[in-house]
């Protein structure tokens, strides 16, 4: 699918079983940390990432896949827009309990 | 496709009449309503049992003239969320007094099985792998809060019927 992109892109989704925010990594796996995200700089790259993400959706692992603008923070990938930055961190009004508190994968009963 | 029978009616065995084909003599055919309204008596004489295929936006009033000619009705859902199909079945039973088979086609989902039944549908055409889920869904609830037009009386009534019967005995 030909598409026009304005800049680097990354993919965010939610994990099906617990809804947790996850970012697509280059190997097709997912991370809770935006910094681990794969970033695509061109259209072909985005298509490839999207295909990887779609495979996870088809496997019922994630849902709500979004291709989003990526920027950098501390030299690492980060969502460019506020809404998705909010996803990376958790609610700004509860810094005590968003993902910024424990960004690593939590053991859940998956 | 599998036909799931909700009410135990004698389900019709018919085929969809292709556009600009005439029915074979005595054949059971389902015909889009838009075409049926233009057909004269001859059409109904030649064909066997005739049914109308309705889109969910059909106005039930348009069906009134056809009522004594139709053996069955097919309501074709374009999407399972198109709730007009339920009102249409209600109208057929309630306002038009239709007694024949009402069939649902289209992407309805198993979780709607009881709603379909209670709105007045008899049968549903479903993907083979969904037939079991449909049948299971029919058994999920056995009492209901609403009186409907298929003979189910609401719990609001049923609760007191039980009291009355106890009083009587």
């Amino acid at each position: 699918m030909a598409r026009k992109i304005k800049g680097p892109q990354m993919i965010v989704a939610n994990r099906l079983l617990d809804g947790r925010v996850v970012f697509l990594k280059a190997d097709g796996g997912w991370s809770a940390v935006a910094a681990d995200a794969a970033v695509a700089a061109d259209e072909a790259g985005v298509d490839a990432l999207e295909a990887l993400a779609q495979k996870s959706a088809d496997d019922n692992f994630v849902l709500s896949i979004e291709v989003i603008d990526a920027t950098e923070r501390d030299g690492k990938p980060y969502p460019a827009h506020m809404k998705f930055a909010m996803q990376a961190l958790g609610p700004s009004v509860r810094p005590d309990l968003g993902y910024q508190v424990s960004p690593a994968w939590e053991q859940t009963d998956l | 496709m599998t036909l799931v029978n909700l009410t135990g009616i004698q389900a019709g065995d018919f085929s969809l009449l292709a556009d600009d084909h005439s029915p074979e003599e005595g054949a059971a055919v389902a015909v889009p309503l838009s075409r049926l309204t233009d057909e004269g008596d001859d059409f109904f004489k030649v064909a066997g049992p005739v049914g109308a295929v309705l889109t969910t936006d059909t106005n039930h009033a348009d069906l009134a003239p056809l009522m004594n000619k139709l053996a069955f009705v097919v309501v074709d859902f374009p999407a399972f969320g198109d709730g007009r199909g339920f009102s249409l079945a209600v109208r057929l039973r309630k306002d038009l007094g239709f007694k024949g088979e009402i069939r649902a086609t289209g992407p309805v989902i198993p979780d709607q099985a009881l709603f379909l039944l209670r709105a007045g549908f008899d049968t549903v055409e479903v993907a083979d792998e969904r037939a079991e889920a449909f049948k299971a869904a029919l058994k999920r609830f056995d009492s209901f809060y609403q009186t409907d037009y298929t003979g189910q009386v609401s719990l609001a009534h049923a609760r007191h019927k039980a009291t009355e019967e106890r009083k009587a005995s």
Partner: protein
Amino acid sequence: MYAYDKYDHALVNARVEEFRDQVNRRVKGELTEEEFRPLRLMNGLYLQLHAYMLRVAVPYGTLNGTQMRKLAHIARKYDKGYGHFTTRQNIQYNWPKLSETPDILQELADVEMHAIQTSGNCIRNVTTDQFAGATADEVADPRPYAELIRQWSTFHPEFSFLPRKFKIAITGADIDRAAVKWHDIGLVVKKNDAGEIGFEVLVGGGMGRTPVIAKTIRDFLPEKDLLSYLEAILRVYNEQGRRDNKYKARIKILVDALGADEYARQTEEEWQKIKDQPIDFPAEEAARIKAYFAPPPLQVLSDDVPAVDELAKKNFLFAAWLQNNTNQHKVPGHVNVTISLKPHGGIPGDATAEQMDLVAALADEYSQGELRISHEQNLILPHVAKKDLPAIWTDLDEAGLGIPNAGLLTDIIACPGLDYCSLANARSIPLAQQLGKRFDDFKRLQDIGPLKIKISGCINSCGHHHAGHIGILGVDRKGEENYQLLLGGSGAEDASKAAILGPGFDENGIIDAVEKVVAVYLGEREEGEEFLATYRRVGPQVFKEAVYDAR
């Protein structure tokens, strides 16, 4: 309070099992997300920015101590220790796991609660006056009717896939605390000249991008005809409501397109055909349900309680709380207490599990085990003896719940906004927090008097900004959060739509603008005149000048 019988229990339990099965089928891939979504929504389960969100109904805002303790338990065990009470008399949990929601629903079913039809294109949780059955200004307790509607609308075979969500509100009081004119159907309990109970029926109210105030289509509907008449309204809507554009799918658009008179005519025509069918509840059923809402056996007591007066004299905060957070009960010597969930700097509507437990304990001790939730996102202890107020306030105050701001400027309604909501343009909660800090002076608040600020993070209007005396709407301005200021709305019996005052502001700008608006009011008001009355009298121009000219 209503108590389930074996049928009600069987239905909610069957519903939990149905949902468990649906979740299993979704996880196994037998249901696509597209198919599963409406099913989970009809069980109150959304996907939000950070996680799923579960919206649990508190039918018509009434619950008991045991149920509140269960809500606390769920917050602790399945969530992150808190819940958010909403404008629709629901509670939302922000972090449940899909895999655990069937268990949560089972825990709720165990205490006669559910999340049925708290979302989706179906008839939603019926809302009502938080003081129903307890207030002095009431024709009749609307809750038996709300319960009858709850049952009738639950798993309705014909109306579970409507063009759009459908919200019904009912009040029995002269003062409309349920915003009935902003609902798809509003019902006002009335008595006719013969002393019989019936309803004024309004249709077509709603917020969103096209705010509309509902119109009356029937002045007096006899009590016994309630459900058949609702069925007629719903059938007209289900058949003719638009399904091609979700922003035009609400009943308000259909009522506008047909005209209220035509909507009334079609409803009447359909109703005549069905009104003699056994759709309506029989009288015995109405009596059965009303019996559950019989007034509690309160002793008539004196309204003069010296201990209360003394504490009020000594303690300004208690005096303010007494004035703002209590409402006269119909039995002398009693009041209904509003527990404000709007601490200055806090998150409007949020309560921790510990706070819920405390409130449950207070309910058991002081309010006949009964609690309410208001559409203004506060909790209510009804039927409280005035003499118990000092003890109650002391307990509440220790837990951070004694804030004396009910009905005042900082009693702000705010939707979750961009902090949680995937549809948001801007954050709402931080504005409420900023306003709480800016106006953190109860003497000043008391002087400003009744003023309702309502904040939504996008045009969907979950925060009722259209009905705010001061409304704030979050918009996206080139990727930045921006806020529009609206003035003059009302959600009460004198319902009105707030109007945009002028260009939007950033986060700091909007707080300054509110302060300027308040200053204009203080300068313009006449003796005893409340904000809304002043605005209506002087019009927007003075406010506009004050807010924009000095920029």
